[in-house]
């Protein structure tokens, strides 16, 4: 893991300016059993107006990353290091007051479970209005009008009436819309959506994803969408980051990740899911084993105990830690030589997808 790389040394696919740059982010939680390395040296960039999908299983560190960006671990025992630069400002170095001014205004978050993320004791309107008043010097009635507009924008029917209802009076899909309205009420430049549709039915999920795409076009904001569902990232993301055991194992534009993935874990994810759009296969191909402990992760490559291809690397996967050059266009954390990876994918993986 190279140390803090300069943010300016960026030369990749054309697009907007880099809005968010994360370098060597580490988040650790001291527990009775030992130090949990939830995020262990993560680096990525996100450009203005683009969508980054972060994919991984539970415990891979994807949600911890988003909460660290939001500064939600302040005042906890979590140990955070690295660089989170938003529009040139290091968020980790900000004072609490300055961070509070930015949180919700520059960066907003949509949580997975809208029932526990919304306060049951306040009306939906109160919560949206509050989010607006924190960042705007305006009258309550103007803020209320703004909230009604936002609820209308996210497709809540009859917003002037619904604004005075409580979260429990909303259905799951409507609550998620309300939360999106709350996140977008301040026109944030970055929206982090952490499993925004996992608790929803597919038909409602389709509505919500449609809504997010539409709003992004309208407001030009960047989105980080965190999910375990490869279908959702295929629909939403320009770029995809695959995480395993607190680290990025592969990153690339969506096309590369789906049609020319290079990391054995990405292959495993793609292979293990049943596909509705392909001929039915007799038997699923799971990734063997279980996700590793974050307290004492495996030596060398964290994925090696579950990797079917560890013998293809000429270096010992159990001893040598593979690197990850975050400044390359398609970095892969794997010891198998690149041409060999491409050959394995073409000959062994692709035919079975």
């Amino acid at each position, binding site marked *: 893991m190279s140390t803090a790389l300069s943010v300016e040394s960026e030369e990749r696919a054309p697009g907007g300016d880099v809005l968010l740059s994360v370098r060597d982010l580490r988040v650790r939680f001291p527990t009775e059993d030992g130090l949990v390395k939830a995020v262990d040296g993560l680096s990525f960039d996100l450009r203005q107006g683009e969508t980054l999908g972060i994919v991984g*299983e*539970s415990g891979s560190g994807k949600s911890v990353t988003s909460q660290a960006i939001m500064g939600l671990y302040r005042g906890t025992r979590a140990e955070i290091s690295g660089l989170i630069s938003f529009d040139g400002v290091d968020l980790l170095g900000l004072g609490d007051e300055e961070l509070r001014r930015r949180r919700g205004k520059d960066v907003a978050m949509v949580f997975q479970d809208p029932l526990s993320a919304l306060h049951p004791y306040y009306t939906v309107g109160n919560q949206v209005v509050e989010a607006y008043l924190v960042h705007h010097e305006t009258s309550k009635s103007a803020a209320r009008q703004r909230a009604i507009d936002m609820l209308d924008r996210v497709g809540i*029917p009859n917003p002037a009436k619904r604004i005075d209802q409580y979260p429990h009076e909303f*259905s*799951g*899909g*409507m609550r998620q819309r309300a939360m999106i309205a709350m996140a977008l009420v301040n026109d944030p430049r970055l929206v982090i959506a952490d499993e925004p549709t996992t608790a929803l*039915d*597919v*038909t*409602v*999920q*389709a*509505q919500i*994803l*449609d809504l997010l795409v539409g709003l992004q076009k309208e407001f030009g904001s960047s989105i980080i969408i965190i999910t*375990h*569902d*490869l*279908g*959702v990232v*295929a*629909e939403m993301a320009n770029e995809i980051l695959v995480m395993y055991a607190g680290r990025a194992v592969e990153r690339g534009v*969506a*096309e590369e990740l*789906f049609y020319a993935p290079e990391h054995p874990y990405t292959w*495993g*994810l*793609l292979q*293990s*899911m*049943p*596909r*509705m*759009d392909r001929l*039915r*296969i*007799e*038997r*699923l*191909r*799971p*990734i*063997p*084993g*279980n*996700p590793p402990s974050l307290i004492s992760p495996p030596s060398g490559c964290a994925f090696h105990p579950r990797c079917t291809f560890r013998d293809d690397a000429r270096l010992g996967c159990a001893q040598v830690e593979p690197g990850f050059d975050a400044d390359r266009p398609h970095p892969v954390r794997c010891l198998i030589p690149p041409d060999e990876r491409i050959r394995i994918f073409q000959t062994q993986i692709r035919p079975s997808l």
Partner: protein
Amino acid sequence: MSAGQGAPPGRRRFSGRRTQTGNRIELGEVLLEVEDLKKYFPMKTSGLFRRPADPVKAVDGISFRLRKGETLGVVGESGCGKSTAGRTILQLLPPTSGSIRYKGRDITGVTGHDLRMLRLEMQMIFQDPYGSLNPRQTIGSIVGAPFAIQRIDPEGGVKAEVQRLMERVGLNPEHYNRYPHEFSGGQRQRIGIARAIGLRPSLIVCDEPVSALDVSIQAQVVNLLEDIQNDFDLTYVFVAHDLSVVRHISDRVAVMYLGKIMEMADRDELYGDPLHPYTQALLSAVPLPDPRKENRRARILLTGDLPSPINPPSGCVFHTRCPRFREELTEQERTRCVKEVPAQVPLDADHGVACHYAGPAAAPVL
């Protein structure tokens, strides 16, 4: 933990059951017949005047037939009644009306000794591997509980049998004395499976058995379920909301909406040629892990939310959200949807559709 990987290939349950064209040539014996099953939950009377409240019509008239060794997938959005249907079949909930015949015998509303005998034949695998295992019991006593309840002494004793079961589902038999919290989600689901197959049942209702698991683990458990189905000649009712998993595991699929079966057909037919507008919308809503295909696909968006099962829409319950109703039908046709309830999908339908204007979608949905 790679159990569920080593089974022989080419395992399908009845080979030659169907020809290439999908015609039945050889049929398993009928194991379960459900006819016009209804389950209403009474609501507490409310308000000042204590008027009787309308019941929640969780399951509102469903019929299907299940043959031995078959897997019936039941899909639908949350609140469509699929889990209630599964529980009512197992007599975990008493049905409001309708009949359930198991091996030709009417088992609707059996109690006491008969019910206990029935439990030998019918088991359940639950969704939540955290909530469905008693945290204060060891794995040994959880998996051994069915033997104790039924007062059965398996050959070689309960402990040996439990360890055999643990090994069969891919758990280390030495972990007999461990507690549920010492296991991961996937391993806990294996414990639930071991408990369900202990008494050698014929029918297992699986209620969202893999939806709480990560993708890589989900595939392990799906493979395990298929393996033990072959080994123990099991028949499954597989309740799930994940359409890809249901397609993989099921022989037949029933799509439910507001307590009714909208469409029921063989798996390949349902996914390849869905005729009900709801099935079409459901399939088109699933995002595919293929960006190029995703960009080309036209999604059928359903508007609004699921109506309340207390006061379902008149006529066809789906008409309030139906894209065909909204966009394709004439005024006269719409009146029929609003007023007339479509006929229930019959129990022995090859491809049953509960829709007045069933037909293929305008564009392919997958």
